[in-house]
């Protein structure tokens, strides 16, 4: 069975939805708060985000615009990572969805990054729920797993 987890972050912003939309969809603005990119607000457009490489991952995130409803909803696929690492840096095949809702005096913004799959990221799930102390407890198991020759 493959479980899938999400990260959800919600913020109430004192800015109108059309302005928040601009920050989410204009490449030059996106670059200022997220990453260098070649985004265009068109469904089907493929683009990349370029981040700092980490471990076996070259830092490139491959994306495709899946939904684009101005001032309301934006969704893109988000894939990256390296198959050579079973834990951190394993291949991530996920989606990021931005939902904008007009509220009094601004916008309620919701970001959902979905598709973190077990078992590839088991350790991350363990670490999340009961606090980071579990990370320390899991070290021995993790070190043993990682020490195996590639």
């Amino acid at each position, binding site marked *: 069975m493959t479980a899938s*987890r999400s*990260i959800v*972050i919600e*913020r109430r*912003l004192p*800015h109108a939805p059309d*302005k*928040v939309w*601009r*920050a989410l969809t204009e490449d030059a*603005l996106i670059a*200022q*708060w*997220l990453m260098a990119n070649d985004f265009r607000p068109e469904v089907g457009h493929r683009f990349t985000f370029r981040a700092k490489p*980490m*471990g076996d991952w070259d830092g490139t995130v491959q994306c495709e615009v899946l939904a684009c409803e101005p001032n309301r909803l934006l969704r893109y696929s988000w894939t990256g*990572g390296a198959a050579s*690492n079973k*834990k*951190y*840096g*394993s291949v*991530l095949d996920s989606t990021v969805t931005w939902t904008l809702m007009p509220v009094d005096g601004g916008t309620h*913004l919701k*970001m959902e*990054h979905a598709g*973190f799959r077990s078992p590839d*990221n088991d*350790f*991350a*799930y363990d*670490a*999340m729920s009961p606090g*980071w*102390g579990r*990370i*320390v407890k899991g*070290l*021995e198991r*993790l*070190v043993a797993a*990682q*020490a195996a020759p590639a």
Partner: protein
Amino acid sequence: MAAAPQLNDVMKTLADPTRRAVFERIAREEEITAGALVAGTRVSQPAVSQHLRALREAGLVSERREGRHVHYRVRRQGLKPLVGWLEFYAEFWTERLDKLEQLLSEMDRK
């Protein structure tokens, strides 16, 4: 400033069972002096010092000097290479959304 330690550095540093035990002890105690670490184990003082240096170089512990004592605590972010995408992105998005809010305020002034 040296490059941020990568997964391999962290793994190599923690592969030594004695060093890992020292690290876990620091984690349990929140903050502990080198002296107290030595007193609580059968490991010699020079060996503990050597492990502390390795943990510090791997970004896994930080030190704080107070008079003649050096206090050690675990750097949570030092474990970041170990914890996988979910943990990585939880932190990543929080930081980026802070930047987004800042950008939105700056757009007002332009």
